[in-house]
């Protein structure tokens, strides 16, 4: 018998965790002498009050959908992929190579191949930790952390020594050609008669991210492979007994996870910066952890949590602009969300289970 109804597990616990994180964040804002109510109002106005704000919110959310899905797919296989940051960095390299060295006739074609390239590079970066976990039993958390740092060094080397245009001091690639410019939401929505802000960076990759959410849902719950991934994540001995190869499943799950993290580059490198810069990922790979925890590793949950974090990011930028609250407030909120929905999950769950058990006893 389940201790709690399913809705409590899926909706109530994340909601309570979120409220706890929000309350503590409010205390932090109070502690540095600012008004939390005014801060929330400013964040809502700045992130959701205009199509400009929405444009930024959705741009950030697109990044977080990819990295959140990456963490979620690995989590279903019982693996903690903390290397989304490095995989997204390498994905950026894939996008840059594809956009700079191949003359594309149209952005749509470039988008398909850039996404493939980004996915390929991201998956390749996840492949070694995955192989070491599957074959040699090296802890994937440690290897993916190490690979984040190695990725930063690789990217630094490639940008400074190989891809930097001559005469430029900036460690970044040249601008991508005009033909691979991805249409922004403004350009997409204008023909339909919806006026969307011109200067916001949200672009067609949002649709790719939503497509990725659908793909992950189909993969995990509607394919034999998804069944194998989930079995492995629930119990490795049981999966092995059922004839599922753990090496093969770990490899495939991590390759898909790495590819998803890498594909984030389509949004931030190709869609926004239109060149590859040193710190292109801006920690989005790590936010994927918070997003996946918050979204309970379900693609729809990840979608909602990504929008929530997109709102926090854009709102936090507005706060930093108009008040003396630094942008790092978002990092604190992110930490609290990870803490309550992840590490302190039992703190919320145990008392709630007791309440539900007591209620059931009362009915009988």
């Amino acid at each position, binding site marked *: 018998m389940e201790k709690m109804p399913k809705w409590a597990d899926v909706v109530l616990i994340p909601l309570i965790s979120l409220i706890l994180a929000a309350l503590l964040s409010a205390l932090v804002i109070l*502690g540095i002498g600012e008004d939390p109510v005014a801060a929330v109002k400013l964040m809502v106005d700045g992130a959701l009050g205009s199509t400009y704000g929405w444009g930024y919110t959705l741009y950030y959310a697109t990044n977080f959908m990819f990295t959140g899905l990456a963490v979620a797919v690995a989590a279903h296989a019982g693996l903690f992929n903390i290397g989304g940051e490095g995989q997204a960095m390498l994905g950026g390299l894939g996008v840059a190579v594809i956009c700079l060295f191949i003359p594309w006739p149209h952005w749509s074609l470039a988008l398909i191949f850039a996404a493939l390239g980004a996915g390929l590079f991201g998956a390749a970066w996840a492949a070694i930790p995955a192989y070491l976990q599957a074959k040699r*039993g090296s802890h994937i958390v*440690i290897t993916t952390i190490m690979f984040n740092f190695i990725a930063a060094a690789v990217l630094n080397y490639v940008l400074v020594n190989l891809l930097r245009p001559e005469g430029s001091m900036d460690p970044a690639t040249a601008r991508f050609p005009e033909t691979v410019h991805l249409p922004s939401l403004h350009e997409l929505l204008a023909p339909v008669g919806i006026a969307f802000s011109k200067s916001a960076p949200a672009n067609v990759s949002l649709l790719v991210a939503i497509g990725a959410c659908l793909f992950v849902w189909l993969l995990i719950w509607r394919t034999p492979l998804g069944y194998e991934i989930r079995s492995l994540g629930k119990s490795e001995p049981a999966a092995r007994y059922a004839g599922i190869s753990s090496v093969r499943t770990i490899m495939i799950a991590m390759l898909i996870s790495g590819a998803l993290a890498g594909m984030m580059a389509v949004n931030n490198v190709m869609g926004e910066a239109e060149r590859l810069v040193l710190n292109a990922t801006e920690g989005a790979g790590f936010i994927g952890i918070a997003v996946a925890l918050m979204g309970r590793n379900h693609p729809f949950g990840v979608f909602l949590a990504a929008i929530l974090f997109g709102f926090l990011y854009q709102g936090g930028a507005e706060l930093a602009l108009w008040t003396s609250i630094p942008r790092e407030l978002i990092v*604190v909120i992110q*930490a609290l969300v990870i*803490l309550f929905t992840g590490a*302190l999950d*039992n703190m919320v769950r145990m008392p709630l289970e007791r309440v539900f058990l007591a209620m059931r006893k009362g009915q009988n």
Partner: protein
Amino acid sequence: MDFLTIIQLLDSTVRLATPLLLACLAGLFSERAGIFDIGLEGKMLMAAFFSAAVAAVTGNVWLGLLAGIGSSLLLAGLHGVASITFRGNQLISGVAINFLAAGMTVLIAQDWFQQGGRTPSLIGGGRFTPFDLPFAESLSGVPGLGPVYAELLSGHSILVYIAFLAVPATWWVLFRTRFGLRLRAVGENPAAVDTAGVSVVGLRYAAVLICGLLCGIAGAYLATALQAGFVKDMTAGRGFIALAALIFAKWRPWHAMGACLLFGLLQAVALRFQNIELGGITIPVQAMDALPYVLTVVILAGFVGKAIPPRAGGEPYVKER
């Protein structure tokens, strides 16, 4: 490369290895007791800020050190509550602690000092000053060993000596005391320790708090001895290099010192020379940056001796199943 350059390089190796060593020993205590800790970075960062902030305000570096240790212990306690009491995921808790420290330090620094997330530069009594070993001055004239003693061994901050003395102390505590035996046992087989009537929870909390203490000293060293004040994200991945060193050393104290000195040397070389020419091949500085991580992956892969972590590491202990 002449003799003096080598001495200077090794001198800077010792300085750079010190925070790594303290954090590495911190992780050693925690992981030997079965609590994974990827939050070393966060605890160091928090301690770096509070030590610099209190030292800047009071002008007393010892009060700064205490404040740094206190803040690090607070985060260690949080890690303990999450991973021991509430049996949460230790890795996720570590990630949360890293972000919490990264955000809170800047937030509080901005609120207290309004200098864009840094503390004022520490002057006078706000910093740990070089500590001269006896006769360093008079022996420096002796050829050969004189400069080694005066330049390399003498003239570091007191925390450097504490860090290197902590290595035999850690070895002694872990391998020569009853507490150490129990601590190692709780990381291998907590049920056996429990059956023997020893508190698993108590031992694990003790290990986590020792970890917090050492991380606190490491952070204070960064902000008040190695540098003069706190700047945003000043740990710069040192917590993870310490973690790498811990695996490289296969969770043993003396080997941890070796690994930290090696990684410190890599940092010192990368700081001093940009690109290194070796027999016609140029080694880029990025390769030096990446080397500790690459070495760790190679060790983890088990191609050069296998690194086997404590058996119960990462698993919360449930008394009855």
